[in-house]
């Protein structure tokens, strides 16, 4: 189980490959039949407006502990072998990856449900806030669909 908040650009698929090679394969070789991974990337539009950049703020300490808590919840609830959550903070540009959540399990149903749980919980409760840069100023994101 790993949770990390990154100030630097995130390469989601490079990180998943590395985590499988360094952690999953050594510890769980032959056991994980299924991995479901969600990656969220910054769009250049939101709520009908063009967005040219974003500042992602968080609550250091609480983000980590909250994301660790939901990871443990997923592991306990769906018989998950391991999870990975990575989240960017700071200045983010369109097409930059923002978030990655991953769940490994013996079977696919559990992996899908756990990964979906992780991203829904992250979006509804983890203390991150987005401020968007628009053509005519900036705004705090209010709706988080």
């Amino acid at each position, binding site marked *: 189980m790993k949770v990390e908040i990154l100030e630097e650009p995130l390469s989601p698929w490079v990180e998943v490959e590395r985590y499988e090679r360094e952690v999953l394969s050594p510890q769980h070789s032959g056991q994980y039949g299924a991995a479901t991974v969600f990656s969220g990337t910054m769009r250049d539009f939101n709520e009908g407006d063009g967005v040219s950049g974003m500042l992602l703020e968080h609550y250091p300490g*609480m983000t980590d502990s909250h994301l660790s808590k939901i990871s443990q919840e997923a592991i306990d609830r769906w018989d998950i072998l391991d999870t990975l959550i990575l*989240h960017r903070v700071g200045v983010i540009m369109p097409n930059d990856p923002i*978030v990655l959540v991953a769940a490994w399990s013996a079977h696919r149903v559990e992996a899908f449900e756990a990964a979906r749980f992780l991203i829904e919980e992250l*979006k509804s409760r*983890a*203390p*991150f806030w*987005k401020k968007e840069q628009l053509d005519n100023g900036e705004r*705090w994101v209010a709706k*988080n669909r």
Partner: protein
Amino acid sequence: MIEIKFFASLREDMGRGEAEINAADAATIGEVWARVADGKVLAENMLMARNMEYSSVDTPVADGDEVAFFPPVTGG
């Protein structure tokens, strides 16, 4: 002492990101807010945490606690 933090749009509204009060001056998170908010009402949808765990206005606070107030989250 109780350390207080504000985040995101609330930080901007309050004009500061941090504050501090004496532990004796507040028994609950609601009382912490009253001490530091300069008369501002705590909006219905604001969230709060005590020592980085979600809490409510009725949650008791003690010396050494960290209390945070922030708007609905928008990560992911």
